[in-house]
């Protein structure tokens, strides 16, 4: 293999140096890592996945199954990159990612000797089947995974950034080969907004594989110039359209800086484009299929089109003695061009008779042609040294008779081309096999807003592709008066003309010593497909999963059709009957970093902050996430841990006065003439009877009769209520109200509005709360003037405040509703007046002592009866859930219901989720119920909990065991009533 002194599209004025496994590779700007490896004669790039066979560069594009390398080092290291699509830059470091001690002398290669004993399903049959039910597989798996030639991802943080862009267009043209360029030009001339994307670093597609400086380049230049002048057209190169989604939404990855050593200042490594289009033109071309024969994985066996690409684009001659094997016309241009730079070229053509013109063209170029012959096996150990050639029998699709040996150092094969329909298939299109066109083709009506064009549509030859692309681009934009586009003055050789499309598998049966690989990347042999068939894998989807053919990073781009055609052959049916597997995004592998973008750490999702957040932060609060909220958890004094802090805070509330930020509660303004009737329907208890100026606690059910949410509602006026919800259900409750008002109850004159963010709320709790508040506001707060469950409006400082008298802690308590922007000011006034802050942990301890239900109990699986709230349910009016809550099973006394638990030894903490078992019963199954909330009670001086226990209310006084199987604890508790503090409510009503 040598670099030619002239030719190619590389920049010979800019030499660069690359590194592969410590070898220095002299290369040029414009090379890929693969072309540099080939120019340097590096044959073995990788070891195969299962048998550790030596593998070399196979293709010149993203379909590459073999040449996977680890790119860069350290934190920028990237495994499993395809050397064929890595743009070379000076100083690029790469490593082979398999083989020990090296990829050239790999001890694992001995596995290849046992290949015949390792067919499809080998690992599962050997290591799982016999040891079923034991841990044998888990033991073996470790070694098996280690033996597989797989890559190691870097374990360091990615130093680069990624970003996301939203874009809109009328027509997205995917692929900038001849058809895509023509389509973009037609659409662009019409004035439509067009985005043209290509995964390559330049426009042109297959034209870039034509000899540089020819008629193709001139055509490309003129089209490219015109496209660049269109203001309504955006061109994105180095950009892969990897996913097509519902609603004509496309995912693209733009590799902004992958071709550079490090991203330029301020630039991301990659950019994720989400394009919303009206429609798209799919001009993704076609991928060449290889032929399958014995030892077809030897380094030096390549796709015929890749030889042309390396020659004309990179100035690399892949071999001096070239054999090409094909059944179509496409390789002849390659053969003649290779011969013109001095290679000795032989074409083995499966077809017994060939057109005279073709033979004359070959003869003139000095290319030897052997009609009616084919490769039987390739020879060589670390790379190809020669091929066995025999007569090809078009009837059987196999070679027959004696073989002669032809020496060579590279072999290119072509069985035809497969239209690249991944994106079309992702949208639900099922390609149909066309026996005339010898390809799976799109049924053009299946995905109405995706227009396939050019080779992707099965168009054959350059001129046809351009004409078709232009027409499809015009159709996408319903374009008129857009002129014409003349094709370049190049021959338009088709590959389909009089082509043969056998199964492409030339290997004869019973030749186990010479394995024939249908899928190179996953080491799937022809014999593995045969085995799957014998074992009854009829569905192509099952056969794929059993053999793992078509899986891994290349997703079978060069192997899928082989598997299908072999299955068809075995079943005695046609390719069309076998059908295809389904493609899913991404078309080529994409980096997680690009999907994540900047949504990392605290930017993963928005954080909701209370209007008093700054005060909490400034005063050393520790925070806890509660949904999207970050809430003040506790306020440690010097040396305090969480337990010491919350016990102090809670005890202070019971003895004195504390304040807690409860702004996170959902708050909904319910307004309108029918507001009272609306709440009456929604809540299980009555609201129409609520007097203006009063508060009422309410519980709402779901339609199925389970408890949905609870909260307190204030009647601000005859037609105006302010309803509060739990923090977690603020959104769902509002959505539910809107649903009912806009669907079934649309005649009700009610408006609901979220005012959660408009009000800051401070709970003031403790026996001294009234005295404290009375020092900061002038309104009369005496029990006569403001009884429990009433509110009054006043001012604190200059701030208008509504004082709701209500209690969550069980103490004399108030909630202050303050315009959000002034909440922190009022908080500071209360602190200055002597109140101590307490956090959500102390608040939780207080509410558990009081037996109030919260998230642990309101888990969507509990009824009013379960929660001992049955007394709330109105018997006089219908309400949501009223009918289905009375289902007999929900009335069963055996359902776990709310009780309190006191730990007998007054020391051992309880665990939420622990199961409850009666004293003498064995510990098995689900027990009689479970613990829902736990805390250390500052009042009782010991651990307590709330629990749901079968026949709970009838078991007060019983001793029960709380068993947590995860931590292995077993705690004896006494069952008590769920309210531990002031059950008569003297304090809160005082």
């Amino acid at each position: 293999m040598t670099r030619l002194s002239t030719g190619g599209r590389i920049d010979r004025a800019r030499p660069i140096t690359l590194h592969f496994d410590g070898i220095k590779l002299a290369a040029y700007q414009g090379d890929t890592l693969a072309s540099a490896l080939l120019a340097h004669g590096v044959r073995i790039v990788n070891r195969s996945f299962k048998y550790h066979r030596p593998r070399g560069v196979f293709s010149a594009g993203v379909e590459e199954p073999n040449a996977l390398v680890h790119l860069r080092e350290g934190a920028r290291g990237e495994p499993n990159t395809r050397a064929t699509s890595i743009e070379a830059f000076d100083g690029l470091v790469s490593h082979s990612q398999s083989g020990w001690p090296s990829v050239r002398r790999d001890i694992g290669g001995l596995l290849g000797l046992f290949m015949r004993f390792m067919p499809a399903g080998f690992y599962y049959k050997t290591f799982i089947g016999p040891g079923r039910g034991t841990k044998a597989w888990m033991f073996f798996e470790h070694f098996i995974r280690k033996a597989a030639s797989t890559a190691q991802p870097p374990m360091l943080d990615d130093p680069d950034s990624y970003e996301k862009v939203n874009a809109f267009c009328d027509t997205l043209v995917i692929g900038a080969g001849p058809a895509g360029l023509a389509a973009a030009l037609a659409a662009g001339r019409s004035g439509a907004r067009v985005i043209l994307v290509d995964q390559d670093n330049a426009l042109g597609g297959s034209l870039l594989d034509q000899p540089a400086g020819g008629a193709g380049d001139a055509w490309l230049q003129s089209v490219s110039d015109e496209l660049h002048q269109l203001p309504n057209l955006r061109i994105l190169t180095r950009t892969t359209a990897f996913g097509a989604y519902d609603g004509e939404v496309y995912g693209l990855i733009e590799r902004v800086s992958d071709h550079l050593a490090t991203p330029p200042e301020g630039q991301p490594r990659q950019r994720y484009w989400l394009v919303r289009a009206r429609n798209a033109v799919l001009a993704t071309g076609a991928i060449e299929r290889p032929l399958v024969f014995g030892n077809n994985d030897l380094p030096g066996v390549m796709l015929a089109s890749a030889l042309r690409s390396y020659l004309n684009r990179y100035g690399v001659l892949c071999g001096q003695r070239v054999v090409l094997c094909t059944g179509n016309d496409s390789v002849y241009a390659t053969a003649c061009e290779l011969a013109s730079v001095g290679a000795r070229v032989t074409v083995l053509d499966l077809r017994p008779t060939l057109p005279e013109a073709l033979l004359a063209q070959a003869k003139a170029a000095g290319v030897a042609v052997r009609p009616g012959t084919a490769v039987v096996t390739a020879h060589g150990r670390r790379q190809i040294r020669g091929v066995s050639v025999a007569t090809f029998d078009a009837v059987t699709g196999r070679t027959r008779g004696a073989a002669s040996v032809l020496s060579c150092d590279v072999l290119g094969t072509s069985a035809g081309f497969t239209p690249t329909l991944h994106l079309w298939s992702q949208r639900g299109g099922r390609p149909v096999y066309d026996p005339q066109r010898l390809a799976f083709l799109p049924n053009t009506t299946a995905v109405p807003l995706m227009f396939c064009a050019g080779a992707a549509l099965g168009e054959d030859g350059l001129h046809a592709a351009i004409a078709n692309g232009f027409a499809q681009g015009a159709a996408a934009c319903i374009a008129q008066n857009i002129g014409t586009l003349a094709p370049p003055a190049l021959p338009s050789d088709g590959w389909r003309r009089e082509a043969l499309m056998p199964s492409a598998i030339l290997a004869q049966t019973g030749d186990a010593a010479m394995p024939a690989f249908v899928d190179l990347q996953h080491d799937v042999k022809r014999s593995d497909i045969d085995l799957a068939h014998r074992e009854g894998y009829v569905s192509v989807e099952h056969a794929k999963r059993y053999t793992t053919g078509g899986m891994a990073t290349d997703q079978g781009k060069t192997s899928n059709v082989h598997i299908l055609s072999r299955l068809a052959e075995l079943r005695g049916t046609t390719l069309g009957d076998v059908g295809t597997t389904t493609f899913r995004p991404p078309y080529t592998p994409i980096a997680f970093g690009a999907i994540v973008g900047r949504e990392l750490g605290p930017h993963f999702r928005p954080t909701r902050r209370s209007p008093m957040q700054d005060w909490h932060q400034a005063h050393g609060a520790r925070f806890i996430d509660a949904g999207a909220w970050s809430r003040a958890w506790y306020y440690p004094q010097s040396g305090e841990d969480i337990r010491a802090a919350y016990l102090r805070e809670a005890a202070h509330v019971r003895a004195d006065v504390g304040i807690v930020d409860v702004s996170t509660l959902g708050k909904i303004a319910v307004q309108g003439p029918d507001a009272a009737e609306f709440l009456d329907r929604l809540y299980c208890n009555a609201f129409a009877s609520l007097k203006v100026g009063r508060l009422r606690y309410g519980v709402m059910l779901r339609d199925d009769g389970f408890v949905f949410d609870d909260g307190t509602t204030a009647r601000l006026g005859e037609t105006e209520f302010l309803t509060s919800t739990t923090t977690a259900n603020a959104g769902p409750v509002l959505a539910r109200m809107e649903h009912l008002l806009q669907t079934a109850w649309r005649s009700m004159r009610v408006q609901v509005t979220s005012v959660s963010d408009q009000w800051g709320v401070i709970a003031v709790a403790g026996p001294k709360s009234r005295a404290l508040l009375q020092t900061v506001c002038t309104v009369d707060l005496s029990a006569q003037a403001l009884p429990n469950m009433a509110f009054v409006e006043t001012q604190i400082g200059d701030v208008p405040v509504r004082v709701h008298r209500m209690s969550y802690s069980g103490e004399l308590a108030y909630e202050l509703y303050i315009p959000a922007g002034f909440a922190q000011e009022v908080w500071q006034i209360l602190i200055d007046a002597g109140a101590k802050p307490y956090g959500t942990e102390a608040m939780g301890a207080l509410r558990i002592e009081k037996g109030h239900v919260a998230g642990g109990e309101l888990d969507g699986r509990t009824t009013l009866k379960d929660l001992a709230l049955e007394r709330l349910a109105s018997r006089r009016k219908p309400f949501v859930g009223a009918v289905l809550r009375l289902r007999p099973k929900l009335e069963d006394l055996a359902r776990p219901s709310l009780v309190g638990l006191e730990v007998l030894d007054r020391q051992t903490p309880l665990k939420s989720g622990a199961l409850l078992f009666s004293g003498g019963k064995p510990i098995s199954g689900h027990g009689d119920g479970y613990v829902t909330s736990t805390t250390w009670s500052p009042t009782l001086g010991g651990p307590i909990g709330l629990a749901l226990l079968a026949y709970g209310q009838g078991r007060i006084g019983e001793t029960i065991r709380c068993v947590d199987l995860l931590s292995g604890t077993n705690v004896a508790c006494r069952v008590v009533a769920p309210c531990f503090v002031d059950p008569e409510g003297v304090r809160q009503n005082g």
Partner: protein
Amino acid sequence: MLRFSCPVCGLRDETEFTYGGDATLVRPAHDDTNADHWHDYVFLRDNPRGAHREYWHHVQGCRQWLVVERDTLTHAIGLVALARESRP
């Protein structure tokens, strides 16, 4: 990603909406005490292949509940209407 033409806000991404279930069901009158009616409404669903009407809530937009015609096979979106203006 599905995209819906919200009658208020125009063509918007699915991510702005939440799914709200089968829109072909008729909710029993709020004072209906027949348990069978409620059982059928709450628990029984058809699973049609093809055209379907369903509720979507434009929760990150105008907060209107919409009735969307969606083909469950192809995800093609048909008529989108405000729930309050569509036939019950």
